[in-house]
């Protein structure tokens, strides 16, 4: 089953940056997503979704998947990430 690794980045607190003590990660199975969310994720990886310019202090998400060609990762603003992926991450302190 294809798995997606999700990491939340940025925000006012600078999540996930170099040296940051706050990390926010999660994982979901593609088959656990609704058909609409699966399409949304596929469109993100295929660069079919218009990406708005970054907004101050908004979160970004790094989404990683394994394909036959290897690991593929994208980094996109919160606006375009389906809630099911956004809600999969958990904030923790390191």
């Amino acid at each position, binding site marked *: 089953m294809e798995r997606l690794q999700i990491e939340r980045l940025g925000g006012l607190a600078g999540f996930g940056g170099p040296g940051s003590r706050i990390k926010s990660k999660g994982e979901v199975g593609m088959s656990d997503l609704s058909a609409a969310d699966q399409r949304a994720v596929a469109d993100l990886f295929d660069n079919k979704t218009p990406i708005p310019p970054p907004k101050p202090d908004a979160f970004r998400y790094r989404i990683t998947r394994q394909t036959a060609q290897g690991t593929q990762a994208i980094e996109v603003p919160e*606006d375009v990430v389906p809630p099911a992926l956004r809600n999969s991450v958990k904030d923790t302190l390191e």
Partner: protein
Amino acid sequence: MCTCFIVPRDILTKLSQDPRLPPDIRKAAADTARVAQEIRDLRIQALRLTSIATMIQAPVTAIAAAPAITVFDCGHTQSLPGRPISGPQAGDDSAKRAFDETTQVAKFYKDVFGRNSIDNAGMTMMSSIHYGNRFNNAMWNGTQMLYGDGDNAIFVDFTLGNDVIGHELTHGVTQHSLQLEYTDDAGGLNESLSDCFGSMFRQWEKGQDAAAADWLIGSDIIGPSARDRNITCLRDMADPAGAHCLAPQPTQYSQITPGMDPHYSSGPPNLAFYTACKTLGGKSWEKIGQVWYRVMTTFGPSPRMKIPEFANRTRQVAGQMFGGTPDVGDAIEQGWSAVGLSRSEGAAIA
């Protein structure tokens, strides 16, 4: 009402046409898709208005009234703007703080810098509170402020930080002045200006001089589990690399790399501002803050500005404003020297 950035419009349209969904859900999706398009159009108009307003700033400012302060309650959803709140007396502490501190930020900009609201033309200052479920963030979305409640572990309610409120509103001021992009050097400057003016606002409210100020960013929104790990702030302008920071930053301009998150590349300009204020002494907003504000607001849009260019402009403006008081220029030079951007180092980079 949903915003366009929560669910893509094509998905909303598909949901509105899905026969498996109940009619009320399909109608809500259709309504939201229509509203989403309107908001998208509104944003485009807002960007155009920003450019035009910047060009004709003086006449607009002269006729503009003082800004209205509005607060909305998202009710722990991500639907914007949420339910309108009548006023600070409504019985919600977050709402009261959002009203009161936003009013104070407007007064700070008016009294200290002569600025009329975010756009210097009396723009309504709009906030939405209780945004999302235990949402660990606050932000300026291009037209308004959003504040989460925090998870009560790592963070508490983001309206508890007066510097946070000053920080977010300053992103709006930057949008209506330098119009800095949010990547690379320009992104770091964008973040730094919000930290500088957020910290100055906090000091101004407390009547503190540079020696008495703590120079911490976000110290009032750090939650109990973070405090248990000796984390006392998001960032420390006096000690950007400190272990007590949730996100320690670089201290030298040479450490900034392309693509670095703006909350990291803001470390050196934050330290330069702190060092200048501390070296000069007195209240940060009276002289060094005035130089920073002039650089932010009098040169016109500079979306890709580099940090060394900003540094040179502070030197230039300090000479114009305080030419008879060389201490100001000397303090600013010490500030930039502390982060590897002395006059000679900056010239070598350019």
